[in-house]
């Protein structure tokens, strides 16, 4: 087992579904950070059997919407002085802008440059969002 030392200050993104770690790493642009960042894949987990985990050795701004969309099951721990200062449990965002695209071929967004489409969560269980223009549901 690979050991990574405890963080003194920074962010731990835990309980990432195995395979989603790299997606989150990429979407949050962690490759561009100059701080120390660790992405661990396929760590044994009692709750999840295997999970991914990311540690960032700095307190950076995290786009929780992006995180929630990729994997709403993750937990975020904010670490200060080696202690857990805050734990954030994610939920699917109610509104999403500029991340999803409408998959309905009859939607005006397929032919016009409409900018960021507002998608509204209509069914958390099926992770379905509704396009503001055509009202068709898009699954994540």
């Amino acid at each position, binding site marked *: 087992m690979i050991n990574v030392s405890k963080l003194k200050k920074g962010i731990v993104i835990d309980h990432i579904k195995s395979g989603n770690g790299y997606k989150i790493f990429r979407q949050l642009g962690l490759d561009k950070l100059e701080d120390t960042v660790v992405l661990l894949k396929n760590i044994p987990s009692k709750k999840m059997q295997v999970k991914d985990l990311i540690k960032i050795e700095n307190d950076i701004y995290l786009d929780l919407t992006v995180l929630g969309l990729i994997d709403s099951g993750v937990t975020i721990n904010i670490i200060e002085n080696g202690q857990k200062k805050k734990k954030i449990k994610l939920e699917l965002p109610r509104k999403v802008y500029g991340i999803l695209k409408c998959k*309905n071929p*009859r939607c*005006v*967004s397929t032919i*016009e*440059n409409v900018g960021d489409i507002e998608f509204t969560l209509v069914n958390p269980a099926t992770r379905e969002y509704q396009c503001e*223009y*055509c*009202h068709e549901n898009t699954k994540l």
Partner: protein
Amino acid sequence: MIKGKSLIEANDFSLEEIDDLLDFAGKIITREKDYSDLCKGNLIATLFYEPSTRTKFSFESAILRLGGQVIGFADAMTSSVSKGESLVDTIQTISYYADLIIIRHPKEGAPKLASKFSKIPIINGGDGGHQHPTQTLTDLLTIHQLKGSISNFTIGLCGDLKFGRTTHSLAKILLQYPGIKFVFISPEELRMPDYIKAEIGNNRFEETNSLERSIAQLDILYMTRIQKERFFSEEEYLRLKDSYILDNNIMKMAKNDMIVMHPLPRVNEIAAEVDQDERAVYFQQAKYGMYIRMALISKILGKGRKL
């Protein structure tokens, strides 16, 4: 207040605003000549990105009967769209010429997009199979005029209740009026979606696949066409397309004062022989469509004050 508002979806207007429109349309019907100059000096753009004879004529006759003037196109290929101009650019330009834009577009959500960029109000004249709010207002005026009020009746919606969004928006508005009960008549495959039934509530509707067995209890029968373009398989369309054909034999089972409505065009869901029955009001519906559009245009332009 309707003045200056856009109409993109039927529920953009409150029930109070809709009632105001229905009252005003009623005044125009009784004293049409008094309103013939109401919109004199107003220029209204009709941008029809897909052909639609009925809706276009209805809007244009409404404008002309109010003394207004019309600019526009009936086919996108005769406009700058053929040069590749975007909808947003067209709307921003036309906004400086006209006082109101009426848009019909094959893409769903196009009128909403237009309303975001327009400096003047937009009326949605239909966006694909998505929304057609002036059809809903037409239906409401027809009921209001022919039944005397919009309350305490049983309405049967028959045909394609799954994809037919006209019936969805009509049902969602009607359920806000008192004493309205629904009978949803459709094949299993074309049932009213669950989310609309949930909004209506179990005690206000019943569901059946038999028109014959349910027609006797109806005050209004709203027939719809089963649309070919909604089906992925030709086979399924052919199997369902003639699920309901209203003819004189079925009409014999209906109440004497029941009315038959249809948004038109019909295919063969209503036999031509029914046209002679005075309870068949679907052609009158087209007339009311023009009057409600007269009321709507006047009110949006701020001209709908009592004379």
